């Protein structure tokens, strides 16, 4: 999957490219709006990540020109201004999604996956990872064949982790997607930590192989320890 990253801030561009390369994406970096515009017209990309604040032509101008020319590639915009008008304007201009800087890298990965999956939603009724099984319809969880009793919130949390297995999810993603709390100012971090701890107690503690890992400073990941 080829991604065009239009970002003028060298440090950010390098970090994102490195991170995305590790995830097996092929990333081309453009440092200005003009360069990005040229590259989109010259080559084929599956996704464009576009910074709004660019020197010269800003990201939204580039995007609106591209959309007028009939570009159908999904576009994810990055904006530093955390203002509602900016988001609305971005989506009106033809962006498919947006992220507010500073964002967590796992969040960017999740958005990229969602955009590339768009149109064919994953509707697994049975989620499995290692010896963990989760039945979405019956709302039952088994580990190593034994049923684990979870509360509704713990179930949703585990379901989310299973959907993103082997991907780091940030507390912010959990707050938004599991707790449906859109305001980042609500103090949910402690709440999330407590729920993760309880989930761990039920799903991991009785077993030798631990599945729920904490990535310090970033979030959590469902991954088998090696």
């Amino acid at each position: 999957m080829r991604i065009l990253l239009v970002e003028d801030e060298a440090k950010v561009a390098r970090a994102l490219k490195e991170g995305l390369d590790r995830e097996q994406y092929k990333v081309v970096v453009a440092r200005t709006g003009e360069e990005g515009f040229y590259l989109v017209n010259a080559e084929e990309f599956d996704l464009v990540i576009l910074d709004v604040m660019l020197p010269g032509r800003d990201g939204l101008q580039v995007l609106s020109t591209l959309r007028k020319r009939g570009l159908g590639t999904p576009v994810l915009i990055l904006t530093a201004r955390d203002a509602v008008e900016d988001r609305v304007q971005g989506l009106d201009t033809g962006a498919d999604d947006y992220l507010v800087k500073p964002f967590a890298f796992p969040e960017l990965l999740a958005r990229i996956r969602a955009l590339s999956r768009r149109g064919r939603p994953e509707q697994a009724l049975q989620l499995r990872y290692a010896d963990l099984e989760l039945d979405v319809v019956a709302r039952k969880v088994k580990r190593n064949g034994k049923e684990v009793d979870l509360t509704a919130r713990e179930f949703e949390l585990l379901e989310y982790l299973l959907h993103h297995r082997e991907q780091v999810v940030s507390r912010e993603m959990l707050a938004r997607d599991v707790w449906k709390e859109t305001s980042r100012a609500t103090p949910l971090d402690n709440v999330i930590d407590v729920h993760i701890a309880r989930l761990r107690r039920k799903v991991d503690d009785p077993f030798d192989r631990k599945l729920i890992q904490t990535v310090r400073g970033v979030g959590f990941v469902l991954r088998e320890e090696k």
Partner: protein
Amino acid sequence: MRFWPRHVRSRLTLWYVVVLGGVLVLYAGGALLFLLLSLREELDRNLVEDVETVEGLLANEPGGFVSFRTMHPEENDSSLQRFVEVWSPTGSLLYRSPLLQGQALGRPPKPDGDTGEPEPFSQRLANGLRVRTASSTYHIEDRPIVLRVAHSEEGLWRELREFLWVLLLAFPVALLLAGVGGYALARKALAPIDTMSHRAERISADRLHERLPVGNPEDELGKLASVFNVMLARLEAGFEQLRRFTADASHELRTPLTAIRSVGEVALQDQKSPPEYRDVIGSMLEEVDRLTRLVENLLALSRADAGHIQLQRADLSLLTLAHEARSLVEVLAEEKQQRIAVDGDDPDLRVSADRLILRQAIVNLLDNAIKYSPVERRIVIRVRRGGDSQVFLEVIDQGPGIPTEHRSRVFERFYRVDSARTREWGGAGLGLSIVQWAVEAHGGEITLESEEGRGCTFRMSLPLTRIPNPKRNKGGTQ
């Protein structure tokens, strides 16, 4: 308006002078008119007497003419000139005094004896002489005649002219005096304003503690100065708050930055194993997280200050909202073996509110209550009616309470009762500011009651939405 003077005192003076001038002109006009009327009245009285005198002197002459029996020699004095005309009713001239030099004293009378003129009347003779004329119908030996007698009005008009001159000479003097006096008065009256504006010029952002002089607090200017001083006091408080806010904000921002820096620098001092580096980076990321959250909270508050946040209002049951907030943070209380109870059973206590914002406010209050209460205590969310149009949501804890000296300031940004302890829990002192903003944005009020050592009660009072209550309607006869 090009000639309109720039200074208030000049304008006031101009007004005095113009108004006084108008008054003087009216007065002079009235006086002149009164003088004219009274002089004429005197002249008319003389005329009537004269007519009677002249009647006695008339005699018939052959051929239908009339003559005067006697002529006083002093009648040659022009000031006492008496003009006489005698007409027959048919309109033929019977006599005209030689003084008239052939000029007519009005039109010939009509046959019915009507002279056709009001009595007496003023007119101008052909040679320009102004005269006052009186007529009367008279019979000499059964023959009707019309007698006209006129006096010169020149003396009267001279007197009027002289009076007018006296007035005209006095006018400029009066106006000049009024102008000078008015200017001095206006200057004196406006002097405090000059003082005030000089003083106000000196008051800048650095010298907001200065105040304007208040002369007499009862008069208009004194009131103005007092109002200015109140405004200055508010400005000073505002600046002070801003200064404190900036200092606090930079302190709060610097703390995580310092942590990131020193953790990074120390880690680079010697070789570490990958897991150790991981730990260092994770710790730095945690600080970044804190920084991000702080900036977001600040942004949210500044957008709120600027009025950029629009509430997505809906009709909500406050009780439901309380339950939602409780279920969100209940786990935190459970970790400390605390219990959160919702006290209230009227789901009809509804408010028009933005669900997320109001719930966040309740969550913030609960979060604080959980943090500050010791283990195994009870926290109560009480929803109850507060009078006719208010509904209260109280969050009551059994924590240590808040000392009196801190109570009025806990809603201020970055204000913390015990800074060291709070920072340990990750707070930046913005939670209650956000609560206050949220409640006030909904037209409500937040208050704090606390007794040291016995916990505190945060009370939101919100306007109650009026909705038709079927139960109450049915029981309306009670």
